[in-house]
Every structure is written in structure tokens, then in C-alpha cells.
């Protein structure tokens, strides 16, 4: 009698997802990650609320300072800084197990014989990791809940963007760890490769700060820098595409390297082709990059009337900046009006003029140092100012247009004096103890079953 047919691929995928979740939940590394993240998040949250309250006391006395009290910058970003540490330093140790453990135990040889492609197999493993990543958001969820209960304000779009940024960053870290496990023979090697990439990106971010040209462009696409964009409430298609592209790149590389029966040479060839395709796609995305300001205080936006007027400039606006790369005035300019102009003006050319040698106390000997020159359709003007209030009128004068600002509601700011100290029980005790119990449960069960 012939053997009956096996189950459908969808059913196999469902069983495999269950198995992956079981394997991850049995891993002490996951519970350790959650416990450490909880402690770090709790500490960051309590400290952030204390500092925010201190600043709020002054703002409540002087209402004109209230606009500076922004919960995104004051509470959420510092609190999520703890997640950044967890995602960069601890998450790879959990994620490498997805492939590495099966490879070490030999289970992968069995799984690769199931009627599922390596792509499906990796997708199921990634889905399992994604579900458990949601579990690690428990401390973040508590932060939002406690902040809300304290009377704190939350702007949903910028909060959601912050979560999305960390989600994308984690996705990249997980796929890097999966790839590292796919090309390594042991878990420690895979861990070292993953950390080399994530920490390397961190170092890159430091190394290129204050530099221009290609290095600056490279730095703006380091993982850390891209995550930072999400923390400011700016949804830039280029950064979303870059993070998704990187995740897809490492995911596909993993599937190539797990595909059985291929030589190392053919895997390397496929990897190179993939690098080429990704680079072309990213170049295309960067050409058509657009951004959406989701911050409540519209920090990345110009007045709507200014945006409309600048979008209609048909000629090329050239700005020549006589400032050193490390000069704080240039940094203010770059992160302030220049970033907005880059998004609004269709044809903008920014030139960084050589600033010459610096003097005895670091000041430049160049008489033009600090100057910003503007050229539009043969007309020329210059100024030492780096504020939008002075720069925009210069541009309008050169373009021969008059722009009347539209009235927009001012950002009120949300000062709040609160004490987050009592919430420490949850972050320092309840969640870590639950994690410890869950981690120990697996270990004790193992011990009991072994010695029964």
C-alpha cells in the first residue's frame, strides 16, 4: 500500500512556526534580553521623567518656555535609547539561534528536506522572531501607559513612527544575525560577525560626524543615523527604503547561503549580483526621495506658504557656504533651514567652499569665513545668518517673489511635573522576575525531565 501524501505547505508552515516559537521561548537568551531591556527602559524612563519635570517647573512659571517641552524629545527618545542598546548588543544573540542552533544540532538538514523552499523556511523563522519581538515591547507599552496615566501627552503619529523605526532597525539586526549564522559554523562566530556589523555601524556614525562629501553621505546611511531620523518624527522614504532594502538584502543572502547543493563560489556569485541589484534600487530610491513631517511641532516643515513658494522655484538656487565642517553654525544650518530647503527647493545646489587655514585660536583667517552666498538666475546675495527668518527673505528677493506666511497654530508644548519613581517596581522587579521565572522554567523542566 503506497504512503499517503503529506500535508499542504501551508499546514507545514504553520507547524514549523509553532516549532520556531517553542524553540525561541525555551531559549534563556530571549528572557535575559527582555529582563535587561526592562531594567534599562525603566531606568531611562524614570530619569527622563525626572529631568522633564525639572524643566517643566521653569516652563510652568514662564509660559513662553512651554513650547520647548516636547514629550517625544524629553521622554520617548531617551527611553527608547535603552531599546537601541538592547537591539544592537543583545538581540543578535537571540536571532542567531534561529539558524545557528538548527545548523549546530543538524535539525537544519531535516528542515531543508521538508517541501518548503529555503526562502519559506527563513520567512517562517523571521515571522517567529517578529512575534517574539512584540513581546520585548512590553516595557515600552508600560512606559506609554504610565506616561499617559501621569497625564503626559502623546502624539500618535510621531510615537508610531518611533516604534516603526525601532521595528525596522530590529528587522535589519535580525536579518544580519540570520545571515551571520548561515555563513558560520558555530554560534560564537555568528555572534561575533553580527556584533561586528551592528557595532561597526555605530562606530561609522561616530567616525564620520563632522565630515562632508561621500563620508557624510555614508554616515547618513549608517544604521544608527537612519534610526535617529525616526526619532525626530521625520518619515523619509529614503531611510525607510534603505532599512527595508538592507533587511531584504541580508534575508535573501541568508536564503542563498542556506540553499543546499550550491558551491561556495556560486553562493558568492549570487551574493554579488544581489549587491548590484540592491545598490541600483537604492540609488533609484534616493533620486526620488520624499519626506513626511510627522512631528507634532512641525520641526521639519516650513510655513505652508513658504513650502509652496519654494516648490515653484524653476531656476537653480546655489548656496555657497564658507564654514568649516566642524563649525557648530554649519551644524545648526544643516539641521535647520538647509534640511528644509533641500526637501522644498526642486533645484538646489549646495557648495562647501574651502575655508582656508585656521588661526591661532581656531578662527579662520579667511575673510569670507562664516559667509553664505546665494545665487539664483544670475542674481547674487550674501549673509552671515543661519536662521530661516533671514535666509528665506533673501531667497524670495533673488527670485523676485513675495510670500506672506500663513497663520498656523503654534505648538503649545506639554510641560508636566510628575514622579515616575513608583513605576520602578514594574521595570526593576515584576518584569525581570517574570522573565527569570520563564527562563528558569525551561531550565528546571529540563533538569527535572532529565533526572526523573
Amino acid at each position, binding site marked *: 500500500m503506497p*504512503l499517503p501524501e503529506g500535508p499542504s505547505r501551508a*499546514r507545514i508552515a504553520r507547524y*514549523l512556526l509553532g516549532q520556531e516559537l517553542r524553540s525561541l521561548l525555551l531559549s534563556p537568551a530571549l528572557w535575559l534580553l527582555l529582563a535587561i531591556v526592562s531594567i534599562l527602559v525603566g531606568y531611562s524612563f524614570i530619569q527622563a521623567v525626572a529631568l522633564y519635570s525639572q524643566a517643566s517647573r521653569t516652563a510652568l512659571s514662564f509660559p513662553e518656555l512651554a513650547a520647548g517641552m516636547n514629550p517625544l524629545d524629553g521622554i520617548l527618545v531617551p527611553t527608547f535609547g535603552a531599546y537601541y542598546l538592547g537591539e544592537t548588543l543583545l538581540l543578535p544573540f537571540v536571532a542567531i539561534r534561529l539558524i545557528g542552533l538548527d545548523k549546530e544540532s543538524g535539525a537544519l538538514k*531535516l528542515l531543508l528536506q521538508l517541501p518548503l523552499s529555503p526562502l519559506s523556511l527563513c520567512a517562517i523563522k523571521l515571522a517567529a522572531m517578529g512575534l517574539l519581538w512584540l513581546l520585548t515591547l512590553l516595557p515600552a507599552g508600560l512606559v506609554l501607559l504610565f506616561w499617559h496615566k501621569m497625564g503626559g501627552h502623546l502624539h500618535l503619529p510621531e510615537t508610531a513612527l518611533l516604534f516603526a523605526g525601532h521595528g525596522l532597525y530590529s528587522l535589519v539586526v535580525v536579518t544580519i544575525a540570520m545571515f551571520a549564522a548561515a555563513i558560520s559554523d558555530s554560534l560564537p562566530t555568528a555572534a561575533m560577525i553580527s556584533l561586528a556589523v551592528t557595532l561597526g555601524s555605530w562606530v561609522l556614525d561616530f567616525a564620520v560626524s563632522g565630515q562632508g562629501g561621500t563620508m557624510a553621505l555614508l554616515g547618513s546611511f549608517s544604521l544608527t543615523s537612519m534610526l535617529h531620523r525616526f526619532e525626530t518624527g521625520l518619515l523619509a522614504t529614503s531611510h525607510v527604503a534603505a532599512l527595508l532594502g538592507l533587511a531584504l538584502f541580508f534575508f535573501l543572502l541568508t536564503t542563498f547561503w542556506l540553499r543546499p547543493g550550491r558551491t561556495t563560489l556560486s553562493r558568492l556569485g549570487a551574493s554579488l549580483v544581489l549587491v548590484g541589484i540592491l545598490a541600483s534600487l537604492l540609488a533609484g530610491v534616493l533620486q526620488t526621495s520624499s519626506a513626511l513631517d510627522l512631528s507634532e511641532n512641525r520641526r521639519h516643515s516650513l510655513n505652508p506658504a513658504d513650502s509652496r513658494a519654494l516648490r515653484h522655484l524653476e531656476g537653480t538656487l546655489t548656496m555657497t557656504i564658507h564654514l568649516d565642517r566642524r563649525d557648530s553654525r554649519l551644524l545648526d544650518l544643516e539641521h535647520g533651514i538647509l534640511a528644509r530647503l533641500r526637501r522644498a527647493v526642486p533645484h538646489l545646489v549646495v557648495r562647501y567652499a574651502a575655508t582656508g587655514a585656521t588661526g591661532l585660536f581656531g578662527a579662520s583667517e579667511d575673510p569670507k569665513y562664516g559667509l553664505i552666498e546665494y545665487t539664483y538666475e544670475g542674481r547674487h546675495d550674501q549673509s552671515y545668518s543661519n536662521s530661516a527668518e533671514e535666509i528665506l527673505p533673501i531667497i524670495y528677493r533673488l527670485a523676485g517673489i513675495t510670500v506672506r506666511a500663513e497663520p498656523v497654530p503654534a505648538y503649545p508644548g506639554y510641560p508636566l511635573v510628575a514622579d515616575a519613581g513608583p513605576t520602578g517596581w514594574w521595570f526593576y522587579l515584576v518584569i525581570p522576575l517574570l522573565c527569570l521565572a520563564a527562563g528558569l522554567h525551561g531550565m528546571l523542566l529540563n533538569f527535572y525531565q532529565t533526572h526523573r
Partner: protein
Amino acid sequence: MTIETGGSRDGELSVRGLSKRFGGSRVLSDITFSVIPGEILGLIGPNGAGKTTLLESITGLCPVESGTVCRHGRELGPEERRRILWYQPDNILPFARQRVATTLSFFRHVHGAATAELDELITGLALDAILAKPLQTLSKGYRRRVLLAIALLSRQPLLMLDEPFDGFDLRQALSVMDLLRRHVARRTMILSIHQLSEAEKICDRFLLLDQGRLLGIGTLETLARQAGLAPDATLEEVFLALT
């Protein structure tokens, strides 16, 4: 020396011209043979003969330099191989930290085997006592039995087992042979075995492999004739004569 490679029968699996190198050394040299449906083919050779590499090459788990695996005269791609072949490697510990019962249940589900079939295997392989224990804590013999259960739960018509009797005492080996004999009524098997006495007891035909070279394939009688020995020669005598 002429090597019989087996006739061309409908439904069989044919391996043609399989060759593989590891670095500078050749580990498989132009291996060609056919498997007859419903038989147990013993892959016989000393340690390092290339038995595991041959099985992994047939399954498609490791790359080969040249050669094809065909069924009904048609070359099998990776997906078709996954549908037709199941290879159970030696010395693996799948999902080692979880209970044996959970692991077996997972493989029963992904293979689509019936609960009764799993129960029968648990009884047949005497696994009841260790179902609640994690695989990593079991003795070599028990681990081997769990792996055998996983293999026998598979649905693929051709089953390839790497050293299925390693770690068993004589009584256990005979019991497992009996179980395999019952299963072979529904499928074909290739067993990689380095213990000649056990191979002689269970296999219908033998493929002798040494240093990646195919020395001969056929029944014991055929191989004895090929080696110039009496028809009642043992597998050990045949192997020694041919190497």
C-alpha cells in the same frame, strides 16, 4: 572489472556519474547505480569510504561536481528530490532541548502521519520511557531510536538512513531490522552501514564503496561471483576480496 549497475526498471531511482571533490581529494568517483523499488540497498564501506557524502549528494544537500539523480529516466530537481527522498543523517540532535514527545509530534504533523502510526513506532522502538525527556539527555541508543522514528514518520517513497544500527546491541538491532522490514513493504530504503554482519542480515543488495569508488553492486551471490568466490561467501569475504 565489469560492475553491474542494476537494470532499468520502472519507478526506480538512478544515480549516474556522481563525482565530488573536497579540496584536492576526490571523495566520490563517477558513481552510477540504480535502486529497485521495494528493496533495501546496503551502502557498504569502511569509515571514510564516502557513504555519507554519497547520501547527501543524492539528497541534494551537498554540491557535486557532476552527475544526475533520475527517476523514471527524468532528472530530479531540488523540489522533486524533497518530494521523493528523505535522508536521515547520523549524529544529529534536532530540537535537543525540547521533550522527545514534542519533537516526534512536530515531525508527525509536518509529515502528515497518523497518530496511530506514531503510537506504533513508539511501541515498536520502545520509546515510551523517554517521551518526556529532552533528546540531548538520552543515551546514544535512544537518540538513534528517536531519529529512526522521525525517519519512519516521513512520507517520501525512498528513505535513506545513515548508520541506523550504530549504538544498538544485537537484540535491539534485530528488533529494528524487523521494524524496517515491515516498513519496506511500502517504500524503498538505502541504508549506510559499516558493520558488515548487520548489513548481511537486512539488505537485499549491496553497494560496495571504498575511497569514493564503486567496487560493485548486486546481491551477495552476484558480488561473490564478481570477486571470484564461492556463492556462499560472506559479505566480509566479498568485501575483502574486492578491496
